[in-house]
């Protein structure tokens, strides 16, 4: 069973619907206990970094415990940003610190937010992006971006190069919305189901 973490921010329907379409067994939950029982966890997110305060109910601990047990975790959008140390968007809230660096604003040379379909420069060897062609397009909508690190598996250019996807062991993150990225996005979610 794949658990989708519902911490009360935004709309999780699209993510759930995409997994339903793929035939995955899915449960949307705000219960730390359900996360412990799940085989895999999807941590979607949308909106402001401060909304992650809602993880204080025990969800943060449950997420970090799942990660330490090697349970596959996929962070989407704000969910991926949480995997880093923090964000300029809200300095008081710490990220999980699984990946180094902080999420920052885009340079003033480009409009913000970054909204629309942009291409991925895919690095070889990613399990999440297996079979995804170079320069595939995915749908983004965000104002803050994560830095490139050794864990970056796909980079996107918008005013600068930023992390479109990250991966280390069973921890995965995508800044774009695979559930809104057509066949490319569905293929990525299918890869996660098969990890």
């Amino acid at each position, binding site marked *: 069973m794949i658990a989708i973490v519902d911490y009360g*921010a*935004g*709309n999780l*329907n*699209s993510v759930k*619907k*995409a997994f339903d*379409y793929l035939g995955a067994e899915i449960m949307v939950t705000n219960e730390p206990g359900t996360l412990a029982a799940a085989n895999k966890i999807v941590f979607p997110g*949308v*909106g*402001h970094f401060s909304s992650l305060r809602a993880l204080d109910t025990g969800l943060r601990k449950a997420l970090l415990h799942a990660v330490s047990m090697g349970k596959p975790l996929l962070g989407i959008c704000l969910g991926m940003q949480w995997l880093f140390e923090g964000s300029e968007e809200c300095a008081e809230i710490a990220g999980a610190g699984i990946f180094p660096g902080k999420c920052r604003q885009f340079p003033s040379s480009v*409009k*913000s*937010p*970054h*909204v*629309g*379909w*942009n*291409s991925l420069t895919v690095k070889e060897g990613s399990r999440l992006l297996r079979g995804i062609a170079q320069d595939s*397009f995915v*749908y983004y*909508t*965000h104002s803050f971006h994560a830095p490139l690190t050794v864990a970056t598996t796909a980079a996107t*250019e*918008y005013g600068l190069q930023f992390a479109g996807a990250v991966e280390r062991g069973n921890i995965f993150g995508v800044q774009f919305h695979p*559930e*809104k*990225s*057509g*066949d490319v*996005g*569905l293929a990525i979610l299918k890869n996660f189901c098969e990890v």
Partner: protein
Amino acid sequence: MLTKRIIACLDMDGGRVVKGVRFKNLRDAGDPAECATAHARSGADEIVLLDITATSGNRNTLLEAVRGTARSLFVPFTVGGGIRQLEDAAAVFDAGADKIAINSAAVHDPALIGKIAARFGSQAVVVAIDARKTDRSAQGSFEVYVSGGRVPTGRDAIEWAQEAAACGAGEILLTSMDRDGTQSGFDCELVRAVAEAVSIPVIASGGAGSARDFIEVFRDGRADAALAASIFHFGLENIAELKRELRDASIPVRWPC
């Protein structure tokens, strides 16, 4: 590279996609779910479903159509028409929309933008603006109209777009009433004025008739996205063919899809 989006708009009346000229002489153009999937398959980057009747008695029909359409659609999906309060928006999101479009209700109560954005995120709130040039002279400004373009508000379109963005709108869907339904090209002057005044994306609407019109609105109008309804129905313009022409003109588009 960030691409320019081509958005297919489905006007819906009583659960069916319809096409007419300026909401008159409506012709049946099919089932919303089928139309949306077909457009997405032919390369639409996004789908907008607009309930043009939007009477309160029709809400269940709309929600049913949203549910049916969302089930097998995996590109961004915006729903507009008759959303007057937070609860209306919540019901539409719950049915499977990714974004909602609000028009008259936002003009009457700009705080509604922030209320929906606080709960669902700014990326989910599209403020639709219908505007018309006040006079034909070069000095003419653009006035905002509400209630399906029937009621002038005396408000300046550029100022309203800036206010909407400040209130938390994620995108502006800007329709030129002068061009809507004419297929004589987008109003690049209007689109450019708004696109340069706000930092959020501007979707140009009204007047699409040919690939040349899209090239102009992206190049001269500085639009981030362009929306059309009529030319994508009945095979007047195939989205894949349109994208090929845009690519040949060095406009960045998502291709292949």
